[in-house]
Structure formats: C-alpha cells, structure tokens
C-alpha cells in the first residue's frame, strides 16, 4: 500500500471536471483516531491518509449525502463523487448499485486492495489513554505503531478487526482506478456459526436475551451500515409501529431480528455495525448466520456485481423444503 500513489490518484480524480469532491480519510483529533473527510481540491489531498487505522467504511456516505432534498430553486447537479473503496466497500457499492440506490455514472471509485484494518477498541485496549498523534503501518505480518517518538511492534493478529480475519474479498470488485497490489483472500470460515448451533437452545436464547437487554437502541448499527439506507426505516415508523420506542428486551429482539432479516442477501460483512455499537453486542454473528444460509441454500453472495437479482425475489423449483409439512 503506497500512500503516495493513493494521493496521486486522489489528486487526479479531483482534477477531473466531473468530480465534485472526494471522500477519504484524514487524521483524527488525537491518538489512533482517524476521521472520514471530504476533499474538494487537489491541494487538500495532502491531508489524505490511508492506513490500517482507517476502519470506518466510506460507502454509507454515498446514500447519505447525495439524496437529501434540494433547497429552493437549486437544481440537481449531475456530477461525480469520488471515494476510496476497499474490498468490502466495493461490495457494498455493488449491492447499492444493484438496488439502484445511486447511478453508476455518479461514482468515481478508487479501488484499494486491503490487507485488513485495526479494530480501534483492540488497539486502545493495548495502548490505553494515548493522546499524542499515532501512526500505524503494516510490515511482514506485524503492525509498526509510532506513538509520539516511540515505536512499538505488535503481531497483526492481535489487533486485526474480526471481520478482516475471515475476509474473502480484500480486492475491490468494482473500481474506476485500482491502486495497489492484489491481496490473497482468506478461506470461508463459518466455524463459529456452526459451533454455536451445537449449543443447546436454552443456552443460545439466554445469551441473546442478555445481549439484547443491553442494547440502548441508539440505532448506531443501522446508521453505520452501508446497506441500511431506506428513506423511511420500518424500525422508525409509527404507521405501523413494529417496535416501540422503549428499549426493553422484547423490542430490542424485534429490532435486531428485523434488521438482520432485512439484510439477508444484502449484508456484505463489512463489520461496521459491530464497530459502531457502543455496547459491544456481537451483531456480526447474526448477519453472518444469514450470510452463510443465503450462500448454502441459494448459492448467493451479496455485492459480487451490480446486476445480480436478489435471492429474496427469485427462486428455484428445487429449493429446500424439508421443514415444510
């Protein structure tokens, strides 16, 4: 991963007449913080960064910023948004394109093959209370962490985000420019899902009721998800009201089951929901269960391309029905 090459691509993108701005990353306020950032001019590209600390996905901004109502007489301008996209981001983009969430000709995608990102909670647990600016780079399976003028080495596995440990699509599947060398994907690994299903029902239920009881219904998971972009979300609706405002276990269970179910065949396992959850609820478990089932049962994976039809609106005459009386 060559930051200069990325900055050059970004610069070239911003030089195009049809690109309005570029979405990327810049240093955050302190410590390991990194923040998504919008770059309007070539000059601003200097503050563009890209490192294993850039955990947040930029894909949600595509459906967030571009479709707000226009004030007064302002006409809709047809111009492109450029953004940096890794493997999971590109899958999210493909899925959004397949759902006509945004036209392809409004995007300029700079694809970057990804070797994984660091889970901020893990690195902050390892190096607590860091306020000086910190930088991280990857080298030979280790993270070289520079805090102030101190340097540390940590094995990659200790800090890598869980979603990245089983990532099968590190290389962007859609892009206008690709910068960086291809990365080898991991093997599919759903052992945690299968071993979970061997546990007795009561143990599973108790675990999830405990988890759901801790949910504070902040909706951070829904907001962080690149695929949750309904104009009106059923979990917000009052007409009809599927979940009440109160955050008791029953309402929270309905909330999370509904969200997971609505993502069936759409979730790209980017892990943003779990990253965003302030209560540390293992939301990816639910999504990955559905991801596994959709693949096993219907041979479908979300975000492989921008044309595929949803497995929830198609069928095979031979679909399994052994549970049907």
């Amino acid at each position, binding site marked *: 991963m060559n930051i200069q090459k990325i900055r050059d691509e970004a610069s070239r993108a911003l030089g195009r007449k049809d690109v309005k701005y570029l979405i990327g990353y810049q240093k955050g306020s302190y410590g390991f913080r990194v923040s998504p950032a919008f770059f309007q001019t070539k000059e601003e590209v200097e503050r563009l960064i890209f490192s294993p600390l850039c955990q947040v996905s930029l894909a949600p901004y595509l459906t967030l910023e571009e479709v707000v109502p226009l004030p007064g007489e302002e006409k809709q301008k047809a111009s492109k948004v450029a953004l940096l996209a890794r493997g999971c981001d590109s899958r999210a983009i493909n899925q959004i394109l397949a*759902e*006509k969430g945004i036209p392809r000709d409004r995007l300029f995608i700079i694809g970057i093959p990804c070797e994984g990102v660091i889970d901020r909670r893990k690195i902050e647990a390892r190096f607590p209370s860091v306020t000086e600016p910190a930088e991280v780079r990857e080298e030979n399976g280790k993270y070289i962490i520079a805090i102030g003028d101190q340097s540390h080495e940590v094995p990659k596995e200790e800090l890598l985000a869980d979603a990245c440990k089983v990532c099968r699509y590190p290389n962007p599947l859609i892009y206008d420019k690709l910068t960086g060398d291809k990365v080898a994907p991991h093997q599919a690994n759903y052992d945690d899902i299968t071993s979970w299903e061997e546990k007795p029902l009561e143990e599973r239920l108790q675990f999830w009721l405990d988890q759901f009881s801790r949910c504070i219904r902040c909706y951070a998971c829904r907001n962080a998800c690149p695929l949750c972009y309904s104009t009106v979300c059923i979990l917000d609706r009052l007409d009809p009201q599927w979940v009440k405002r109160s955050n008791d276990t029953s309402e929270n269970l309905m909330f999370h089951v509904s969200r997971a179910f609505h993502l069936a065949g759409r979730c790209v396992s980017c892990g943003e929901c779990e990253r965003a959850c302030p209560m540390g609820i293992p939301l990816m478990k639910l999504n990955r269960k559905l991801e596994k089932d959709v693949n096993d049962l219907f041979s479908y994976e979300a975000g492989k391309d921008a044309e595929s039809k949803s497995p929830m609106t198609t069928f095979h005459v031979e679909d399994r029905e052994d549970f049907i009386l």
Partner: protein
Amino acid sequence: MGKIKVGVYICHCGVNIKSTVDVDKLTRFALTLPHVSVAKNYIYLCSDPGQELIKKDIEENSLNRIVVASCSPRMHEPTFRKVLRSAGLNPYCLEMANIREHCSWVHKDAHKATRKAEGILAASVAKANLLEPLEEKEVDVTPTALVIGGGIAGIQAALDIADIGFKVYLVEKEPSIGGHMMQLDKTFPTLDCSACILTPKMSDVGNHPNIELHTYSEVVDVKGYIGNFKVTIKKKPRYIIEEKCNACGLCVPYCPVEMPDPFNMNLSKMKCLYIPFPQAVPACYVIDPKHCRYTLKRECKQCDPVCKELKAIDLKQKEQLIQVEVGTIIVATGFDTFDPTLKPELGYGLYPNVITGLEFERLSSASGPNLGELLIHGKKPKDVVFIQCVGSRDKAVGNEYCSRVCCMYTAKQAHLVREKIPDANITIFYMDVRAFGKGFEEFYDRVKQEGVMYRRGNVAEVFKRKDRLIVRAEDTLMGQPIEVEADLVVLAVGMVPRQDTAAVAQILKLSQSADRFFLEAHPKLRPVDTASDGIFLAGCCQGPKDIPDTVAQASGAAARASIPLSQGKVRTEAIVSYVDERACRGCALCVEACPYEAIELKTIERAGQLVQVASVNEVICKGCGTCVTACLCGVMQQKSFNDEQLLSMIAVLGERYE
C-alpha cells in the same frame, strides 16, 4: 376520516353455528370491542330478512364498517358485499369472521368453541376498524378473441365466437387446421367418418368473415391483461405464397426429396414439398425447411420454375412477426399420445408389428398409407391383440390418470378389424372397460357380440418366439397367466400433455395440474376458466376427453370468452397494492417479486430531485401482496391487507381465548 361505527352481525346458520357457539354471549362480547355500536345475532343472515336487517341498521345507525361472523368468506363475501352496496356503503368496508367452517363445525367443546369465536371476532373487528373504502376500476375490452390451436376444440371455439359476432384470430402450429381428429378413421360410438364430419367445419373456418386464420404460426409472446392482451405471432415461412397457391400439386413430382409423412405417423413417405392432406385448410402447399435442399444447402430449386403462371413458390420467404390486440384468449393446444417406448416390455420400436392406436387409425383410414386395407408386411393379420391402458393409470410412467377415450377407441378399432378381416382372432387385454358416454355401453356390447375376446389382465410382456409375437398376460378372472399369439399388437396409448405445455404455460402464465395438463380455475365450478382472467381452456389441453366433450367444452369456453367481449368493459381487482411515492427509494425489489410484471419504475420529482419510484398498474395487479413483503421500507402496501391491519389482528390474537 369520520368516526368509525362498526356493526357486528352474528349468524346462527340455523343450528350449524348456534349449537356449538353461544351466539348470545358472542353478541355481548362484540359490544365490548372497539367502536362497535351495534351487535346482533340472527338465524340466517344470508337470507333476505337477514340481509334486510343489516341494510336497515346501516342506514338507520350510520354504520360505516360491518363485521359478519358466520360462514367462510369464500361462501358469502359477495353476498354481503352486495348488501353493503345496496345500503350505500362501500362494499370493501366488510370483514367476515369465519366461525362456522373454522370453528363450530370443527370443535366439539362448546365453551372452547365460543372462546375461539370471540378471538376470531375480535381480530375481525380490529381489522374492520382499519378498513378503507376501495374503488373498483373499469377498463375497455378489445372486442377480439385469440384461439391458440386449430384442432376440433379450437375450430369449434373460433366458429362460436365468430358467429356471436366478434373477430377471432385462430393460430395453428401446423400448416393446416384439423389436429388429431383429422387423423382418425371412424369415431365411436356412431362410426362417423372423422374427416367427413370435420372438414365442413374446417371449411367454415376458412370462409368465415370473422376468422383470421394464421396457420404454420405460433404465439410467441403475450403481454397485457384481460381486455387488453398484446400478442406476438410468429409466422413460419412456407416458402409458398399462401394467397397465390391453388393447391394444384403440379410442382410436387419435381421435388427430389422424400421424407417420412408425419400425418401418416411416419408410416409412409411424402415429398418435402407437400400438403398435409388433401382437404387441408388453407389449401396451400408447404416446403419443409429441415429437408429441402435449397433451405439447407442452397441447391436444387427444381420446384421454382414449375409454378410459372401463379409464381407461388418463394424460396426466399422469411419468418414474420406480427402483433395483434385481443380481449380474451382460448387455449386449445390439444394433446400428444403417450410414447410407448417408455414401456419397453411392450416391444414398441423393437417389433414392427407393434403399433399405437393412432398408427392403427392411419392404417385403417381410407386416406392412409394402405388406402384402408389393414396390411402388416403386405399381409392381412390373422391374430390381433389390443392392449388397453398403455401409459395411463400407470404410476410407473408418471401418469396416474385415466385417458378416458382408450376403452372406447379400442372397442371401435376392434370392430373395424372385425369388419375388414371377418375371421380374425381379436383379443383385448383390459383392466376395466369405461363405457360411460351416450351410446358407449351399447357399442361395447355390440363389439363383444362380434366375437371380440375381452380378457381382464395387465400385459407383462410382448416378445418374439421363433417368428411369432407372443403377448403374455395374467388373466385375472381365470386366475392364471396366458399367452396369446399375435400378428399385430395395437397399444391403446393414452393422452399426455403436449411437450410444449410448459413453454405455453410460461408465455400465458398458466399453471399445470398434478397431471401436467393445464389447470382450470376451479375443478367443478370453473372448468374452462384459468386463474389468469381472460384466458380460457378448451379440449384435451385441459385433460383427456373425447370429441363430444371437446366440442361441448369448446363452446363453453367460447361463451365464457365472449362475456367480457360483449360487456365491453371489465372490472379490475380492488385489493391491489399501492406505493407511498414520498418514501419509495426505487430499489425495484417489488418489480422483481411481482408474478405479473404489474409494477414498473417511473421517474418523479421529489423535493427538487428526479427520483425513480415504483408504480403499480392497478389493472394488471391481482392483489397477491408478494411485493409488499419484498419491500424493505414498508412503502408498498396492499389494500385491505396492509401491515397495519394485519399487525392489529396479530396483536389481538395474542390474547389467550381459553
């Protein structure tokens, strides 16, 4: 919306409900439910006084939602909708609570049944509170019909509709109309000559001013809905100009290519420049492109210069696609015969003197390969064995049904053998003899008296011993196996759905029954309708039947198909789905989910932006609600079955009514 005032009416249904469900208790319970202002019970609500009771209450109490707790809505929903209409209330403000079929008739314990009825009623009232008046739209009907298939069923249907006064397009795949009936010799039980009774009707079709005949053509696409179908017809090239050919046949001797004659079941040869049979309608020749040297290799052209004056031969003719608009469609695509190679033990394909019933018809027919003489290897057969139920009533080959015609056509064929070969030994192996129709039993008796030996038993095997065919079977009445020698074995093959049934079903969005024939809308009450409004069935494509039943059904289908045409307008479904355009994000999941392609994306302006939203064609929409479930935003809903209404029922049914 003004104040909701619900009227609840509980029927005793004589004693059918009252004997198990405590109707008085249920009435008192009804008054405790939200917005119920009137609750009554009555002995027969569907009767005139019962209906009057409801009507008066609506008028006098300004009721605007009605719940009728009685039999199944599948029984009387139309009845009570009419009552609401007559009282000036929108008919869709009605909800029915099924406390008979789903309650009083299936539970013994009166207390439990009553409590369950309370639950059912509470759910219905909860939904009724949320019902909205609905509109039924009307669309104009194109006063034209399409008949697909030119066999006797298609011919009869086309003639009837044309006589009623509407234009009909009759599309037939083969170069001539007539179908299988044209191939038959004499028909049971009257022994009419099949071609003789058919050709006048074929002639009528050819001459009828209201029938536009398209032969050697296929329907390849159907879009639209009842009253407004847009049909694409593919006209295959004959390489002969239909308007010019006068069927003189002078070109035929110059054609050097011979091919098997399918009309004679490939038992004889014809030229690849041919007319299917002399009485073909239209009377026009055709060149088979799979055998013609010109179409295959650009050689020959010997026929071309022969037609000097009329210049009817056009070897450069191309396929044509034409589009027509029709109001209703009748499917009369007919049947195939069972392929007996699927029962190899019967020796078909192995021994040349094992033939099918249809091949027998051609051999026996005066227009057949032997001009009506029954000859096998040039000799008259002495021992003839018929085997019934070949490919029918047979789970092993996947056809459990009875093909209806085989017992009678076998008896007829046995009679024809007796007539042509008076001293023949004729044996028929049968499981049952089904002689159910008019004159059938009498004919069967007559055939038995002609010395035809009926032996009850399934045939195990047909095999050769030295140079004789042996039919081995079990004679169940004698209780022992028997062997009969045969010069000719005729397999009474049954009817099977045509090979292209699934393809046709796809084009027309029809369903197939378990036996793979086309599915009718209701087996008893709507035997010629299909689930697709405006599309009807006639003849064997719906299931095996003989000629009189086919003609009767074809006339029935013609009448049904003419109803929308003569009414000129058709009412559309009211419980359609609808979109909240303010919040739809145009993801098109609903478009994909819809079985009828009733939903499209359209562009609208919303808050200054141009966005795509879903748009439901309320005329095509049939109200299944599959799109509603597909919608992740909840902006797609179904009238009278929206999420709010169903969720209210779910909430109410959570209570324990024990």
